[in-house]
């Protein structure tokens, strides 16, 4: 039972959270100006890396806030969590948990 460090509440068990997909994908400011391919890129295309992945999580059964995380998709461990709106840290700090 993974512990996830919510930036607002601290370490909580994973069952309190819901996953929010890849992070740092801004909704286009003017969707109507996009071609079908560009819109499909936004809707469906994701990085899907083997290794560290920037993603969004929500503390659904807690504070209800969205936040971001870098998680290693191979080991499943979280490297770092950070608040919504903050950029992905360049060098991951020491493992949060």
């Amino acid at each position, binding site marked *: *039972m*993974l*512990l996830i460090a919510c930036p607002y509440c601290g370490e909580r068990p*994973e069952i309190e959270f*819901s996953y*929010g997909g890849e992070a740092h994908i*801004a*909704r286009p400011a*003017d*969707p*109507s100006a*996009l071609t*079908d391919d560009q*819109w499909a890129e936004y*809707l469906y295309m994701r990085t899907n890396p083997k290794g560290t992945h920037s993603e*969004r999580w*929500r503390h*659904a059964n807690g504070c*209800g*806030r*969205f936040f971001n995380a870098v998680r290693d998709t191979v*080991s*499943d*461990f979280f490297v770092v969590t950070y608040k*919504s*709106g903050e950029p992905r840290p360049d060098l991951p700090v020491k493992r949060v*948990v």
Partner: protein
Amino acid sequence: MSAFRTASGGRIDRARPLRFSFDGRTLHGVQGDTLASALLANGVHLVGRSFKYHRPRGILSAGADEPNALVNLSRDTARSTPNVRATMIELYQDLKAVSQNRYPSLAFDVGAISNLLSPLLPAGFYYKTFKWPASWWKKVYEPAIRASAGLGRAPTLPDPDRYVPRWAHCDVLVVGAGPAGLAAALVAADAGAQVILCDEQNEFGGSLLAETTATIEGKSAQTWAAETVAALQKHPRVTLLPRTTAFGYSAHNMIGLSERVTDHLAAPSANLPRERLWQVRVREVVLATGALERPLVFPHNDRPGILLADAARTYANRYGVLPGKRVVVATANDSAYRAALDLHAAGATVAAIADIRPDPDGALVAQARAAGIPVRTATSVVRTGGSKRVSWAALAAVAGGSPEAVPCDAVLMSGGWTPSVHLFSQSRGKLRFDADQQAYIPDVSVERERSAGACRGVFGIAAALADGAAAGEAAAKAAGHGGAKAQTLPATGDAAGAGGWLGLVPNAAATKAFVDFQNDVTAKDVKLAVREGMRSIEHIKRYTTTGMATDQGKTSNLNALGVASAALQTPIPQIGHTTFRSPYTPVTFGALAGLSRDDLFEPVRATPIHAWAAEHGAAFEDVGMWKRAHFFPRAGEDLHAAVNRECVAVRRSVGIFDASTLGKIEIVGPDAAEFLNRMYVNAWTKLGVGRCRYGILCREDGFVRDDGVVGRIAADRFHVTTTTGGAAGVLAMMEDYLQTEWPDLDVWLTSTTEQFAVIAIQGPKAREVIAPLVEGLDISREHFPHMSVAECKVAGVPARLFRVSFSGELGFEVNVPADYGRAVWEALYASGHQHGITPYGTETMHVLRAEKGFIIVGQDTDGTNTPDDAGVGWAVAKSKRDFVGKRSLARASMSNPARKQLVGLMTVDGKTVLEEGAQLVENPNQPVPMTLLGHVTSSYFSASLGHPIALAMLSGGRARIGSTLHVPMPGGAITVRVTKPVFYDPEGARLDV
């Protein structure tokens, strides 16, 4: 006394005899016996029939790794547990056990024909059989396979026992209470750590419980163990959990423990749970799980009476039982010599020790020779004989030559020791194959844990004690409790764990040389898998099913690797190993379910009106976790009769309906309208205060996700409703956009689903029902038109009153604080009495709205429909720059006229009610597979119209209105006419009152 009981010795109480029955036969054991040791004491070795070949099988081990002796244990008809290992059952008075997988009896089992047919039944035979003739599969093969599959029989009555969950935190969890674990727990606790020590056995001590010669700190090993346990028991920082298996290691040191509380008691108190499931979050783990002895793989190594050598030693030393009077020992390492010596001391004759090694020269070998035990080096057992009990073992030189049959009534085999790395592997630690040890041992940890003792290849009591103490010290320190110093405890005893043999013994055939006893997998099967092209151990495992039984390969995995390695001509580390999975040993469903059973299985959400509905005879249905009144049958009515009556009553006069479960979200703030504009398809800016609009929410891909009436309470306050099932998801979606896309908007969202009770009054008399109870609002036709909302009082309670209609009749929805829900309902019901007010349920609600063609999201839509497909394209704002889903709706394919569109259907015969989900075709006589044009989404008999109606999603539906289609059904095709999706009052005149 039983024939094979020793005169003295063992941790049993010969003065306390116990009566038990096995297969209906009454036998006797003593306090301290397991079922296995008691059976052996009575000379009973035949305890089961193997899975596939139905070969006679006996007890192989003395612990949790037992693959053969699986019995059914029952206390009464309901308390019947199949597949229990006899070696782990503590004997109690009148215990009742029955063998499995045999008919009609263990001694005479017709299933044994499989053994004769075994050449036709190698591993994976089912990939090539049961295919012809095809029709035989359903009638012959499948029923026969189902009848013969499995080992035990599941109980048929609900489990009456209680199982409770427990949660705990501690600094150090020590798994395993052998010498390493006891030492670790002592040191950690002394250092100041909170310690939990658990062991699957009923007594702590592990391997020390069978030690008769070793000493620790000058006392006998068993005395040292007893004193240490007593010290730990008194220690304020230590929790001892015997009979507790650590079965699962999950992320961040969350360990699952299964504690068996009452299974060993003859008459368990009803106050005790049968088991406890512990979920323990631990700072640091010490794994002291020991090692498991391996069998040797030679032909017919599976007969009753053939045991693991150290198991035989355990039976002799711990349980005072001789597994045989004349034993042959087959080995490739030193520890079996200790077994031979101990059995010899207990009165058995050791006819020979066959050692595969050419020059064994350990101290134990010399002792055995000195005791007069014949030791034959470079010799292997190559075959055994005896059907229901082994009666001879054939010994042959490793180099070759004819075998010699040695008569015996037991064979003890030792292929070496496999460190038990299951929990370490579950923690996702990396294993390393140690070539010297010929074993996989823990290498790189991922979690905060460390292994100590035999489970990491450190054998011998002295070494295990030292290793455990060091691990305990390190664990305590890492948990923040430095300061204890692990002392070296002097100990005498053998250090005989290293060495051994992997795979088929030399110069022996592979046929009937068993690798996995429980799944009946032989060395020949593993070689077959390799010949069939399996290269990876994962494929070999699945093709042969070796390691896939309930023992998870404890006695078979390494031998399978050995056979595979020889067949592939590849060293073991390059082949790898399979994944160890939780649970380490089987855990009852009861323990995993815990308290989540019956009424506590799922939370039940009930509305404030629920009790009233129940008192008035409502039948309920589940909508998500909610209970909703489905219909209100009067005496003698079934569903259809009740619904017909309710529908007619609403349209003729007035009905009352509980709509409390629908989602409600309060959207408040200066940017409330802007936020709604961006989320929903509709235009909201111009919606006046006090007005309502039917809102559609799409996903970003343009498909309808949810719908609901939205009321504007104030310029900066909207009351949004959602479907019952969609409430949480819609709020989550809104929060997603608000928090992560538009955090600059000044608006906030609150779920008010449970804060408001919602009472719908629908029907021509609706205004007359509510008018006497409404204060502070003019609800006349002129001043409160359709789709209005206002705050007022109803029955003296502050309310939001909506004039909305899901039925197509004049309608109101009274929203009051939930605690007042029932009182207001009763007031309205009383007020409606003179108008014949009729309570109605969800079924009637569905029929009434279908008569009007109102969609239900998730029934008429399935997540692949645009608003236009669903007939609500009119709701989409024409001139909004953007909203969620707008860009996707502009895709060319979203306007394809062949898309499925909402239509109505009427059966031509005017009587047949279509089945929801039934398909629509043009020509019912076309060959299968037919071209499917769409399907029926909603279908009812309409009492108001006197004929059945249906809604459907039909390809190019709107262009097909007026045409005839067919619905193929098993009893014949039904002819339907495609209509507009509205059957009742298409102009909406009934609302204009």
